[in-house]
């Protein structure tokens, strides 16, 4: 395993790998290594030394950091100035049984968006610019450190969710936003999935700009008490004191009733997948049109499941034997079933997503080849 700590070293390493035609795996904190197709026994490039905040410009609402900077470092530095990252990064390390440190680059590469995606968009919506090294061993940049830019192809979109298949990232520039001073979670208790998701959609399609909308069956909320009944629709609202009170009143109006508030924020444990950490089997993220959530959840018929993003994201644990059924249900709903946790054999057989239509799969391979013609970077993991 080779370790690098600068862009120049990344260039040197890639050039040597290119010369030797030797593909490698890119690893930073390592928390997401078990996601996607396993990549044989490749040499590893340890990029954890590419760490640290390069420039934080609170007044410009922009932060530039090396990709292996810990998410916790970013979050706390931003919080000191009352700001937050432009997207809501999810740390899956507990779910995936990793002791590593979740990094900014890892979250971007996996497009790992938490419950806040509903309001703030995904990583791809707030990554403004990046630097990286392509498969020719050339350092390059994509995008620019300004909030509005249509000059050339929008490469920052491509590197988000690419699982390291396009380049070795060396620097990332994200938008940041003011962090609302207060947040509250409302709990509509004892509702069946159908009614619960309907309530969430009503809030999602309002002007309340909710920060989280999830439905949890009762067994996924242990310790909250028997009043949860069959399950609960959770609504997270944010703002300064007065606007927040106004939003709560409007939410009560939309729901047609006054509902209880939950003291502790339940969303971090929803977004991280840790509710499934101790449940055996595969863990899936199934993305569907939100209105299909009740039907799809019923068809999936999982014991352990929950719905985030107002129903657009269904998490579930399922036995390995159910894999093709899960994929078929997602496909029938014109959705995507992402295998987030599975054995190496299962991941090799199933891939991160279902195989794409041939024309799309061909395009994806061609786009990877444009960046990485010899397929040196994380070959086969996603593309």
């Amino acid at each position: 395993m080779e370790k690098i700590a600068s862009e120049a070293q990344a260039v040197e390493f890639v050039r040597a790998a290119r010369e030797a035609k030797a593909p490698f795996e890119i690893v930073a904190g390592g928390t997401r290594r078990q996601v996607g197709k396993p990549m044989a026994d490749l040499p590893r490039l340890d990029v954890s030394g590419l760490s640290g905040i390069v420039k934080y410009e609170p007044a410009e609402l922009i932060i530039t950091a090396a990709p292996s900077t810990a998410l916790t470092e970013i979050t706390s530095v931003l919080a000191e100035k009352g700001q937050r990252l432009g997207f809501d990064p999810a740390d899956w390390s507990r779910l995936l049984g990793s002791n590593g440190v979740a990094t900014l680059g890892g979250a971007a590469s996996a497009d790992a968006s938490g419950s806040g995606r509903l309001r703030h968009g995904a990583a791809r919506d707030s990554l403004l610019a990046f630097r990286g090294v392509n498969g020719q061993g050339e350092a390059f940049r994509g995008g620019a450190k300004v909030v509005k830019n249509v000059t050339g192809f929008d490469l920052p979109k491509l590197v988000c969710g690419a699982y390291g298949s396009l380049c070795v990232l060396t620097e990332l520039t994200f938008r940041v936003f003011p962090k609302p001073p207060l947040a509250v979670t409302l709990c509509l208790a004892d509702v069946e999935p159908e009614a619960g998701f309907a309530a969430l959609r009503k809030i999602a399609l309002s002007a309340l700009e909710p920060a989280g909308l999830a439905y949890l069956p009762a067994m996924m909320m242990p310790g909250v008490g028997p009043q949860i009944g069959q399950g609960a629709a959770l609504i997270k609202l944010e703002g300064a004191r007065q606007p927040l009170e106004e939003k709560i009143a409007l939410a009560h109006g939309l729901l047609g009733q006054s509902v209880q508030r939950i003291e502790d924020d339940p969303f971090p444990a929803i977004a991280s997948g840790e509710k499934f950490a101790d449940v055996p089997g595969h863990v899936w993220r199934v993305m569907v049109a939100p209105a299909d959530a009740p039907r799809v959840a019923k068809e999936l018929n999982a014991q352990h499941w929950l719905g985030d993003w107002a129903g657009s994201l269904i998490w579930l644990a399922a036995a390995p034997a159910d894999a093709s059924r899960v994929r078929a249900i997602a496909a029938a709903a014109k959705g995507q079933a992402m295998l987030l946790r599975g054995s190496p054999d299962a991941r090799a057989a199933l891939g991160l997503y279902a195989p794409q239509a041939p024309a799309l799969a061909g395009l994806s391979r061609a786009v990877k080849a444009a960046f990485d013609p010899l397929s040196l970077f994380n070959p086969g993991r996603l593309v």
Partner: protein
Amino acid sequence: MLLPPTNARIVARRAEIVAALREIVPDGVVADESGLATFDSDALSAYHQMPLVCVLPSNRQQVSEILKYAQAEGIPIVPRGSGTSLSGGALPREDGILIGMGRMKRILEIDYENGCVTVEPGVTNLNITKAVEANGFYYAPDPSSQVACSIGGNVAENSGGLHCLKYGLTTNNLLGVTFVLPGGEIVTIGGKCGAQGGLDLLGLITGSEGLLGVVVEVVVKILRKPPVTRTLMASFDTVTAAGACVAAVIADGVVPAAMEFMDGRAAEAIESYNQPGYPLGSAAILIVDADGVEADVSHAISRVTEIVTQCGGKAVEATDEKQRARIWSGRKAAFAAMGKLAPDMICMDGTIPRHALPFVLDEMAKLSEKYELGFCNVFHAGDGNLHPLIIFDIMKPGEFERAEAFGADILRLCVKVGGVLSGEHGVGVEKRDLMTDMFTPEELALQGRVKCAFDVQGLFNPGKVFPTLSACVEQGHIHVHGAQLPHPHLPRF
């Protein structure tokens, strides 16, 4: 502006090509000279070129057949939406088929349950909002040309608008597209589920300026109209103070829905054009929209008012919906109003970091002295997206050349302070030759390879966005003569 050389062999086969296209689209081939003249330019009117032939398909199968034919025969393709591009993205080729998407303008589905609308590419931006506004919804991106520009064109250009400060560009409001690849394959990318199951090709296609294929269906998000919107107008004694105020508002953490800047010269031209009630005698004016729930809007309006005062400005709030609409109607008519001010002008479009606003405004004033040409500024200040308008008289020897050099220097200034050549108008042919000022040869080569991933033969919109090796020094801009725009009734930027 040097475009790839015309292929005389294709031009010589014109009659045969027209006949072949009539086989595919019997009722939608334009081949007569007067008909083609309609399509010889987009809104970058300095450039004109009659297309070889124009075809207007009415369904995706026809699009696919046209592209298969063009690829088999090696004929260039130029896609066109409503032809409102300000950067020459839809400029035809003498040896190319212009494929106009204007007939595919059905709204296919309005899905309130999922908060989205599925449309054909020729539907205008504003018609999406019109289709859903009775139910309290709207489509957020609002380019000033929204009455005419098509959603397919918005996807191709990643269009912005007045309110993208809060709501993002097209790319942030798009769920999926159906796309015809240069070889004729029809692919669906993304959809109501908001996921793609692989690389973010949707993000790549958005803003690709017609270089990768043709959009035949679009799924966009719609949003609930905010319950409250309030508008503030602030006037300043110096341009620099207004620039500093913009930077201070952004730094304060207020996120207005829109924050627009115009200098005194622009404000006076607009005031004399359609009387929106702008204060005269100021050096600069800001228009700020805040929207959301009542308490959030009140907070934003009072914070902005305080900051305006601290920066030495005077703030006045619109008292009712009618006055709000008037203030915005002036802003949207800025381009047409400026046309009354001078015989000729060119409009630039760069983005800069917002903290650099006061510096860049000062530097532009110095460039104005250097080139002995007047200019004025109307732009999306909250995003740092500048639209300087350079005023000149083409009848005076040397002025056009000086205006072009002035414009290129402004864009270079944007790049120098860490900004970009285009915030929302696109590169097209207009800024193509400045791409080397922003990107290294390796970066341009990489983007070129990405294009090849879609378009192996290089038939899609050749000569746009990427400079050729034999680049000519001349750069184009939006050139307006005697207040005549290609679409004079259309609001701009």
